[in-house]
């Protein structure tokens, strides 16, 4: 059967890896430019959501299994809180990253990278979880029913 969405499919297949790459750029360049864990997480989730919108929810669930989502969202918060607990163990206050390295400024860098990774993990998985939960509630919609 003739597929009416050839252009959309080709272009988005080309775009999805670049969107994911841009998310990681935003994540790891967040110390130097605008951006950070939250924005990167939303962009990464948007890559999965775009894939789901174009190729269908089942294909997206194969690419990003729902079982990852539960683990990922908890892991993110645990990573953030765990950084705080680690600073406790090393003798500092909760989330005072200065104790993570000999040079307090380096400790701040490590701490910021760790908590931003936690935010990325949590936000990406929560956004995908909400999309999966809402998107699975109705079957695919026909072309002329929008």
């Amino acid at each position, binding site marked *: 059967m003739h597929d009416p969405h050839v252009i959309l499919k080709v272009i988005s297949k080309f775009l999805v890896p670049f969107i994911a790459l841009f998310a990681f750029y*935003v994540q790891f360049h*967040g*110390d*130097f*430019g*605008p*951006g*950070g864990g*939250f*924005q990167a997480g*939303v*962009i990464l*989730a*948007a890559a999965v*959501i775009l894939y789901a*919108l174009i190729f269908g929810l089942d294909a997206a669930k194969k690419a990003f299994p*729902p079982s990852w989502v*539960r683990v990922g*969202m*908890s892991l*993110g*918060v645990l990573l*953030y*809180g765990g950084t*705080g607990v680690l600073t406790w163990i090393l003798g500092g206050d*909760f*989330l005072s*990253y*200065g104790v993570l390295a000999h040079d*307090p*400024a380096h400790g*701040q*860098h490590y*701490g*910021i990278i760790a*908590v*931003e990774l*936690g*935010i990325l993990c*949590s*936000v990406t*998985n*929560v*956004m995908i*979880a*909400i*999309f*999966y*939960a*809402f*998107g*699975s*509630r*109705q*079957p695919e*919609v*026909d072309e*002329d*029913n*929008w």
Partner: protein
Amino acid sequence: MMLASYATAPTIILDLALMAILIIVAFSIVRMRSLFAIVMLQGVYSLVSAAWFVSLDAVDVAFTEAAVGAGVSTVLMLAAMLLANRKSDPVPISKQIAPLLVVIFAGLAMFYAIGDMPAYGDVNSPANTGVGMDYIDRTTKEIHIPNVVTAVLASYRGYDTFGEAVVIFSAGLGVLLLLGLNGNAGRWTASPSGQNIYPPMAPSANSRLSVSSDNSKSVTSSAVKEPSSSTTRKSKRKRFKDKGNN
């Protein structure tokens, strides 16, 4: 004097144009009846406000607005819209008077409060004199990263950001507990007082499984009359029309 210096800035034309677009989009959202167009226009509104935030040098906020407002929330609104009617019913004039009064009152209060606002870019405004300056000074000494926003969010205000992460996590947790990852699409059972219930028998079976059982029924009934392979698609389309008219 501050106002005059702002007026000479070349970006004011851009700011005014973007705000004009925002007002036009807002009025078209109010006037529209088609929910699909409204959801799309909300995405446009977010994107234009993101452009406006860039013009105001709030790049981090603009980034978040573009990613969340124009991206994810539009998709979530689309998913929510699919569960509802495609068009909203017109509201009678008599029910519009009270909201109009609320809007007028709130708008007048905001205009009244404009007098207390600092001028745009005022060096003596609370944002430029208080703890913000302190963060800018201390970031270069203590953290050595160029982006002060990241330093404030992740380090100086680490507790707040941890709270935000927990809020996002609980939002996801709540959705998962209420809907499940598959939107409870036909994979659940319940056994209240020893009696097993499956989705086809459930009172509110509006999900995928009820649809597929409905589909198979219509296929078997129509296969006798019309032995073409397009019956399933036709019945599917008809069912969606019915759903849309509900």
